[in-house]
């Protein structure tokens, strides 16, 4: 069974949601404390949402130096899959595992509501269950979600099809450049986005729209293509 490590930093608060979403999709979830360096042979590492280290200095800036992040760097360098959600996305950018940065929302307010997004890259470990262009309504909850990158980086991301998730026109909740909600590395093995699919996997909380991200993960074959999902 595919194994997923959910990293817990001091201030993580979507760790249980991610754990639940993984298990519900049929994969095995394990928590890994940020001081540990053993990822327990995980195939996929999830950096969950929250406010690691109180967002001190910049969101994600301190978590990047947690001992576990050395292991995450090695895991990613070896082609292992890493997904960062919200604060996890901020950490991946601060750790230079993904390009760009997330700054204060353009209207300065914390936004917490569902927004419509479009899945634009589907050849990754966490998006294969969607068809390209699928429109998915996902919760967002963040104060620092405005994605920025220099023009050369943006051109590269677009040219290489590395924008994984994009806010549908008019739905952009934070001023992100080009309506970008999430990006990947070139290989598609490291993915980060601001919306919270783990909060939309269970009819009990009103939506299952995000379950496909975790079905993708559960069906993923490390080192190969995605299994056909059932």
């Amino acid at each position: 069974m595919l194994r997923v490590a959910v990293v817990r930093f001091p201030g993580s608060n979507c760790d249980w949601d991610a754990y639940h979403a993984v298990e519900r999709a049929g994969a095995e979830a394990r928590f890994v404390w940020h001081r540990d360096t053993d990822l327990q042979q995980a195939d996929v590492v999830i950096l969950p949402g929250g406010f690691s280290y109180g967002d001190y200095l910049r969101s994600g800036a301190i978590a990047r130096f947690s001992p576990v992040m050395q292991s995450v760097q090695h895991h990613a360098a070896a082609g292992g899959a890493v997904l960062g959600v919200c604060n996890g996305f901020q950490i991946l950018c601060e750790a230079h595992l993904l390009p760009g940065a997330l700054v204060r929302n353009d209207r300065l307010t914390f936004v917490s509501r569902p927004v419509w997004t479009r899945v634009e890259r589907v050849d990754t470990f966490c998006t294969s269950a969607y068809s390209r262009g699928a429109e998915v309504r996902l919760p967002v909850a963040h104060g620092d979600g405005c994605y920025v990158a220099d023009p050369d980086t943006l051109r590269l991301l677009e040219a290489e099809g590395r924008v994984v998730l994009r806010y549908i026109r008019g739905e952009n909740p934070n001023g992100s450049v080009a309506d970008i909600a999430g990006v990947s590395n070139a290989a598609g093995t490291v993915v980060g986005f601001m919306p919270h699919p783990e909060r939309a996997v269970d009819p009990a909380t009103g939506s299952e729209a995000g379950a496909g991200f975790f079905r993708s993960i559960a069906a993923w074959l490390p080192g190969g293509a995605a299994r056909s999902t059932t």
Partner: protein
Amino acid sequence: MTYRIHIRVVPRDGLLDPQGQAVEHALGALGFTGAGSVRVGRAIELALDAPNAGAAEASARKMCEQLLANPVTEDFTLTVEG
């Protein structure tokens, strides 16, 4: 020798600074006409043991590049006080 390092981090020019805009608007509302181009950043001060001022500055510059400022979004300046 212990040096006092003063570091100033501001949003990079050209990057939208909604905090700066909000403060600029508030200054206008208070009647301070003519105030513009407000940027809100942060100041960091620290004591640093180093053999000389040049070494202190080089070390502080590395701190800024690696942690205290995000090179994607922020510029920094630093001064070393002997």
